[in-house]
């Protein structure tokens, strides 16, 4: 028997939403305990700050340029490499329960497997996962959770926030007390909500395994991604009126606008409602209208969703212990990208490579039988490093197609084994004539972003932040003469280490 792997992902969760990372709003004792027993990463960076490219990186161990999913709406080819397939070939039982999103959700011609398996009565096999049970934020559509709710609790379908409006645009409507966008009162009982459903279906699959099976289970919670509509019975846990404003939210509009004006122009243009470069942000919502109370309410509901995930994970871990597997299971907890939640007066995400979207929660509790001491790693790592880490835990060599390396277990291990530690992030988007292209390097205490020519950039713009002295990234040092040599060095490093690009480029076939 080898080590088993429970890979837990959430969607769009900030680093500072966990107690072990200094968060004070959500109570996350389960993840905090994993962190105290394992490795807590302080600088885990995604290779893309939107779902489909980032999730494809987790599955393939490749950068977006290489696996080819360069923006949401580009499907990962069915024959793309998959760590799940490699583990399955090595004898592992494999499952993906929850949100996949390697293929578009908006699929009127039913061309993608993710959208058709439930209606075909199937639970596998796809991309190396022998067992599939899918869920996303909405109870509508054709995924397994939606079909279950439509069948068992049809009265609940209208209780959720409608993710799309009547024009099939991402809904900008607000609700609850403050009218914040994508905030909604949802009377659904917790046991009908997708968080509990994902945990229960995971437990059911684990219960179906033999005691001596090796397994890899990707448990993928759709929350705390917007809409923020957790079960109403749980929202009293945190009164939004008591929620402090985040450090990254400047209360004064003048201060917000002055900050945004130090950054490349697409920041201010989105804030003012004149440019939308990411379909997932509601285009009819203008960030400049965001109020302090709306930030408080969004953060309160987000924290409730984080708590529900933590509790659901606790039930899964208890089930694993009850099977007698506790000592032999690696648990990895992370997310695909972050969320602004008020930083700079913004919500949601987009081509903005700052900590709100780029600093991710990442906890790795190696199997106790591996004897790895607890540690905190401050060196930068990427989600591209996850797939080789799973291979290492399974005792198989990482395939040559993977571009990352196994996660370090300490800073000393990182320094000894990984050499110069740089992490790359990409953004490309093209939607109806508006294109944005950015490349980012995280190295040492610096994060540098260079914009390639596009709809609003001429190729000279960029951002450079000192993560040590400017943790909120308020001072853009790009173009500062005092930093010219540093900027030049980081830029050369960035362009020297760009990953291979898939050719021909894959097509965008849906908005998301």
């Amino acid at each position, binding site marked *: 028997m080898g080590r088993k792997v429970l890979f837990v992902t959430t969607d769009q969760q900030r680093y500072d939403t966990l107690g072990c990372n200094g968060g004070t709003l959500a109570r996350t004792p389960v993840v905090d305990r994993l962190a105290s027993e394992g490795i807590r990463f302080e600088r885990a960076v995604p290779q893309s700050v939107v779902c489909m490219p980032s999730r494809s990186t987790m599955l393939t161990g490749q950068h977006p340029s290489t696996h080819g999913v360069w923006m949401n709406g580009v499907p990962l080819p069915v024959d793309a490499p998959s760590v799940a397939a490699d583990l399955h070939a090595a004898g592992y039982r494999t499952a993906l329960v929850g949100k996949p999103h390697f293929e578009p959700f908006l699929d*009127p011609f039913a061309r993608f497997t993710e959208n058709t398996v439930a209606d075909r009565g199937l639970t596998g096999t796809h991309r190396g996962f022998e067992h599939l049970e899918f869920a996303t934020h909405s109870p509508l559509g054709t995924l397994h959770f939606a079909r279950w709710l439509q069948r068992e609790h049809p009265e609940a379908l209208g209780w959720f926030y409608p993710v799309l409006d009547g024009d099939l645009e991402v809904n900008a409507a607000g609700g609850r007390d403050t009218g914040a966008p994508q905030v909604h009162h949802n009377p659904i009982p917790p046991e009908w909500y997708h968080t509990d459903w994902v945990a229960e279906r995971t437990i059911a699959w684990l219960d179906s395994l033999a005691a001596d099976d090796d397994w890899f289970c990707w448990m993928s919670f759709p929350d705390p991604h917007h809409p923020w509509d957790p079960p109403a019975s749980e929202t009293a846990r945190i009164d939004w009126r008591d929620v402090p404003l985040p450090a990254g939210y400047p209360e004064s509009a003048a201060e917000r606008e002055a900050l945004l004006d130090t950054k490349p122009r697409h920041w201010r243009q989105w804030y003012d409602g004149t440019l939308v470069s990411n379909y997932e942000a509601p285009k009819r919502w203008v960030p400049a209208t965001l109020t302090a109370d709306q930030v408080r309410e969004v953060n309160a509901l987000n924290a409730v969703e984080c708590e529900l995930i933590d509790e659901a994970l606790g039930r899964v871990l208890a089930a694993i212990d009850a099977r007698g597997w506790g000592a032999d299971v690696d648990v990895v907890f992370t997310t695909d990208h972050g969320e602004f939640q008020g930083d700079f007066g913004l919500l949601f995400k987009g081509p903005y490579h700052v900590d709100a979207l780029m600093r991710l929660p990442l906890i790795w509790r190696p199997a106790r039988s591996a004897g790895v001491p607890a540690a905190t790693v401050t060196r930068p790592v990427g989600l591209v490093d996850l797939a080789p880490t799973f291979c290492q835990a399974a005792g198989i060599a990482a395939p040559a197609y993977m571009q990352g390396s196994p996660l370090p277990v300490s800073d000393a291990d990182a320094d000894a084994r990984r050499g110069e530690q740089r992490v790359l992030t990409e953004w490309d988007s093209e939607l109806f004539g508006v294109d944005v292209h950015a490349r980012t390097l995280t190295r040492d205490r610096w994060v540098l972003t260079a914009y390639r020519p596009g709809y609003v950039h001429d190729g000279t713009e960029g951002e450079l932040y000192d993560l040590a002295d400017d943790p909120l990234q308020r001072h853009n040092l790009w173009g500062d003469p005092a930093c010219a040599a540093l900027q030049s060095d980081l830029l050369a490093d960035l362009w020297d280490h760009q990953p291979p690009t898939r050719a021909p480029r894959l*097509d965008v076939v849906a908005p998301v």
Partner: protein
Amino acid sequence: MGGVRHHIRIAASADHVWEVVGRPELLHLWFPGIVACTVDGNTRTITTGQGVDMPEEIVANDRLLRRFQYRITAPVFQHHRGTIDVIELAPDDTLVVYSTDAEPSVMALMIGSGTLDALRELQRQFTDGGPALEAARG
């Protein structure tokens, strides 16, 4: 308004390609994801793989220009115009351009992505044979 345009070259004569493209009742035989198609006068109704019926108005079916135009009239569209142009480049070299303009703009992407698959399937059938060609010759 959103617009999406795709094109493909097919190693066949423009007249031969038009024999398929100009027959609106054959669409489901070369458009992946459309499972059925009926034509009644200027109205065509397609059924998608999700089981959704979508009515369309045939706006132009011009064999001289080799242009087929249609409009999806389902209420979810405030506007739609689909245009397929079959353009002769050489005796056995044809360019097919499939344009989609729609409001809401998101619908242009959703429909437009299907049109790219359709062009590829049309090209494949002119290489390997297929039901649309057989029906056109029928």
